[in-house]
């Protein structure tokens, strides 16, 4: 079985997440080659073939050209699986590659069971096992689900791809960095976060009061931030901050994949949720099944004594 692994590259650098693709190929026990649309200096540590296209020529973000380069490399390599990360790069490109090949696509793979691919469903409350029906398939893997064992090493053989491409339909204007942080949650020893389960903006103060008696910082999930209840600099998760405090208290938070990605390394996790099946229970050391608006004030009173 042959896999073609599509490297992640941004702002002149290979992204570390690229090695998760190699970890996945290890799990599959597959022969692999990689495709890097980037710079030669950013080639991954890998002893095998790396198809290479110069981002200086094709652009870092140019979906039409990148799609053609992926198809070209897949054909040269005769790849059974074309593997992307389930990331802003992967979900932009993978469905287009799959559609062009009329190949099955399986998204956000978290594991493998009897040769089938396991993916989350229903905001991580369920799992599905999927089987591609086509000989060739496009796969995207969940960020963080596969970890590379050992240290990546080796020097790849680069094979340069050269394609004439037409003018891009989407013009890339540049990157915008995340807002500057005025609070550095990464330094906090205790974080108490508010999720949509707190109900309304006025209730955020109750969560902040608990954070205060615990000597910690207030955090929040994305919907709470999007609604303007809490500033963006306090968002925890894949599109916010990654934190690992000694104590993390999740109040009214379901535990989506993107939120858990940002806090699962915390030493001790307490979740307060009225839903006993909420996926946050999978990472929590203590899950308290209760209404946050009743439990949190009672707790704060006890702790401030």
């Amino acid at each position, binding site marked *: 079985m042959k896999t073609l692994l599509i490297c992640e590259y*941004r702002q002149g650098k290979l992204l570390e997440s690229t090695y998760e693709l190699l970890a996945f190929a290890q799990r599959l026990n597959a022969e692999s080659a990689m495709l890097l649309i980037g710079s030669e200096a950013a080639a991954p540590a890998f002893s095998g073939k790396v198809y290479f296209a110069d981002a200086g020529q094709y652009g870092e973000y140019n*979906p039409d050209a990148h799609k053609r380069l992926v198809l070209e490399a897949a054909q040269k390599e005769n790849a059974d699986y074309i593997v992307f990360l*389930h990331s*802003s790069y992967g*979900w*932009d*490109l993978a*469905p*287009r590659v799959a*559609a062009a090949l*009329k*190949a099955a*696509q399986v998204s956000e793979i978290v594991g493998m069971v009897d040769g089938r691919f396991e993916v989350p*469903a*229903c*905001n*991580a*409350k*369920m*799992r*599905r*096992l*999927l*089987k591609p029906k*086509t000989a060739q398939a496009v796969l995207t893997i969940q960020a963080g689900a596969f970890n590379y064992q050992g240290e990546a090493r080796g020097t790849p053989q680069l094979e340069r791809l050269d394609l004439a491409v037409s003018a891009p*339909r*989407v013009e*890339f204007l*540049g*990157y*915008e960095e*995340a*807002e500057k942080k005025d609070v550095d949650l990464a330094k906090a*020893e*205790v974080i108490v976060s508010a999720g949509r389960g707190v109900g309304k903006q006025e209730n955020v103060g109750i969560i902040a009061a608990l954070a205060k*008696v*615990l*000597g910690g910082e207030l955090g929040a999930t994305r*919907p709470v931030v999007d*609604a303007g209840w809490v500033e*963006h600099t306090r*968002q925890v998760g*894949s*599109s916010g901050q990654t934190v690992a405090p000694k104590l993390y208290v999740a109040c009214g938070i379901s535990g989506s994949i993107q939120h858990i990605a940002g806090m699962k390394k915390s030493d001790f*996790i*307490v979740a307060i949720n009225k*839903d006993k*099946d909420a*996926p946050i*229970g*999978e*990472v*929590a*050391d203590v*899950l308290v099944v209760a209404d946050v608006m009743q*439990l949190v004030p*009672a*707790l704060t*009173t006890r*702790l401030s004594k």
Partner: protein
Amino acid sequence: MKILVCIKHVPDMESRFRVNEAGNWYDERDLAFRLNEYDEFAVEQAVRVKEQLGGAADITILSIGPDRVIEAVKKGLAMGGDRGVHIKDDLVYQKDPWQVASVIAAFARDKNFDLVFTGMQSQDRGSAQIGAAAAELLDYACITTLVSFEISGDVVTARRELEGGMRGAVRFKLPAVVTCQLGLNTPRYPTLPNIMKAKQKELLTFPIADFLNVESLAETEKMYPPERKGRGLVLEGDVNELADKLASILKEKAPALR
């Protein structure tokens, strides 16, 4: 300006999910369904474009599924869509994203939409495939996971969300398919008069057979709840007792309390 918005009707994620008899999807009985969260941003953006153009746009709201999906279509109409399209399929859950995308593309093919909005992903299946696959089939440009959108003439300037809060700014011309990420805008609540008005709006129904002409490429063999790792302690019961228990646990864990 002709606009298509594709929406899905999905269960409330706070529901308790049970697996169906075939073991390959959730049992729909006893679930409350609503408009897919990501698609609310899609409808809202379409309506804002229409408002910006002083009403010179025509918005079609499309959903594929059993009769219950009409409720989501009606919400889209109450938010400001002009026409609803229900492509009826009681077994839509068995279709793979490729088939759903093909149905959308087959419906849109001869209609010259300038803009097609979809959500970035559905909350139940979450494949994040359908918008981009439909774009490929229609040979439209496709811009995914938008968190900002500004249109001027036939040129759109937008931002895509990347990892860790970073964004990528892009500019493109219509026609295009765009997929909407959380926070793109603030979706409006339909007002009562608009809900009443929506009842008068055109609602077309077609059988899926009119648009489906491809086989599935992937199959869901099984659905099941995730294995509980059994790491944690689960506390239930009286709130005051829970607060006592949790307080003593936290006193050990929080350095400030020691």
